[in-house]
């Protein structure tokens, strides 16, 4: 777990990427404030998704390279607990900083301040889900060739989170209650939390032996 604080430079990469992608939207689409306010929640969610996806690549690779993973598989403690801890550390490194800079992005899209709480809540629920599901696929593709494979595999899994997460913010935007979206997101988070560490452990076993 101490390994999680290894390279602060690496830790910043997803956050920087998040900000950059977010800022690409106004650059590409023009700075009409109404347009930006309209696409803002969705764009921020996309940026978050891509940032998490990017951070996955280094999730297990260095562990694989320095033999840490092999040792992990030998420890008598149940693997999924160790994996769970590892993933939590990873989220604290990537998801949490993303949440912290989200207000900056929200401002760059000119989003109504009222949207900020629901945006943060949705991202807080959603980014762990994205991370967990992505980790499963990252573990599966650990020993395979082809870099774009991970993105292809992960896209179907990300759809519900994106729909509910982005939908929650848009609900508030249109003056409705985000309760439905958020509770579904929460349910998704709970279920993923329960089964994903096991799935990641299984996937790791498949990849490493």
């Amino acid at each position, binding site marked *: 777990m101490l390994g999680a604080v290894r390279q602060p430079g690496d830790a910043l990469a997803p956050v920087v990427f998040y900000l950059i992608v977010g800022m690409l939207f106004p650059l590409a689409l023009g700075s009409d404030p109404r347009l930006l306010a309209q696409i803002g929640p969705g764009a921020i969610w996309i940026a978050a998704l891509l940032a998490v996806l990017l951070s996955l690549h280094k999730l297990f690779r260095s562990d694989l390279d320095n033999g840490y993973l092999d040792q992990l598989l030998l420890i008598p403690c149940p693997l999924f607990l160790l994996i769970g801890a590892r993933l939590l550390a990873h989220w604290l490194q990537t998801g949490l900083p993303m949440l912290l800079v989200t207000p900056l992005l929200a401002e760059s899209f000119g989003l109504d301040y009222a949207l900020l709480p629901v945006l943060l809540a949705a991202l807080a629920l959603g980014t762990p889900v994205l991370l967990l599901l992505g980790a*499963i696929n990252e573990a599966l593709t650990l020993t*395979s060739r082809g870099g774009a494979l991970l993105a292809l595999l992960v896209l179907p899994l990300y*759809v519900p989170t994106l*729909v509910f997460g982005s939908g929650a913010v848009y609900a508030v935007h249109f003056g409705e209650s985000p309760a439905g979206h958020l509770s579904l997101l929460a349910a998704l988070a709970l279920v993923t939390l329960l089964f994903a560490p096991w*799935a990641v452990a299984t996937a790791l076993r*498949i990849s490493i032996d």
Partner: protein
Amino acid sequence: MSVIKEYWHKLSSAKHFYPIAGALLPWFIIPALLMLAWGSWQGLVVAPADYQQGDSYRIIFVHVPAAWLSMMAYMVMAINGAIYLVWKIKLADIVAESAAPIGASFTFLALATGSLWGKPMWGTWWVWDARLTSELVLLFLYLGTIALRGAIDDRQRAGRAAGLLGLIGAINVPIIHFSVEWWETLHQPATVSKFSAPSMHPSMLIPLLVMALGFTLFFFAVLMIKIRAGILEQERHSRWLSALYAEAPETTATYSAEGNLAAMDESNE
């Protein structure tokens, strides 16, 4: 009980299944082709034009069976993948691997025919409703599974990885369908009713069901061939297989099922 166990043991061995697949093949393909022929005839010629949609609705006779097949093939793939993951039965892995490309091609067909139906009817090639989105995601899942298998060199590892992915996908597709549908009903109640299928007159429904059944049998026929190819591929160095083919070809009457098949006329698909 031990009879069942023995039977199961035999069935799950590639060596025993190989001739069974060959024997089953004609029982699948011939009814399939007959049903497809009859269904096509009924659907294209005999059934009356639709009151609202005119003749373009006839696409439904290939679109619906293709969509149905895309989901059934996924179930076959996911279940066999899971069996391989848990019980390590090699034949299950071959079945899962065989089902994937068939399913993918029919998913593509479902999407394409759906667009061809949608364009003249509702003016658009595509719409992000629950059904179409789920079908598109299904295509990605298929492609992802096939790609994953190709990207992992070790056969066993590839099979297990694909098995796990298949399971995850199987859970995922209903969730996606539900999530998009739920989101739709909040925002676009009108669109949902646009795509709901009207109740069908028997002159249209019966050919549709026959086509669906024909597609299903066709799937199993092709699956049998692919399984045999898969077995040949995997077991090519085993003794039972070389014993089978190193002998004079005249003795292998059953196994020339494929040869007969290629000669059959397929002009009415």
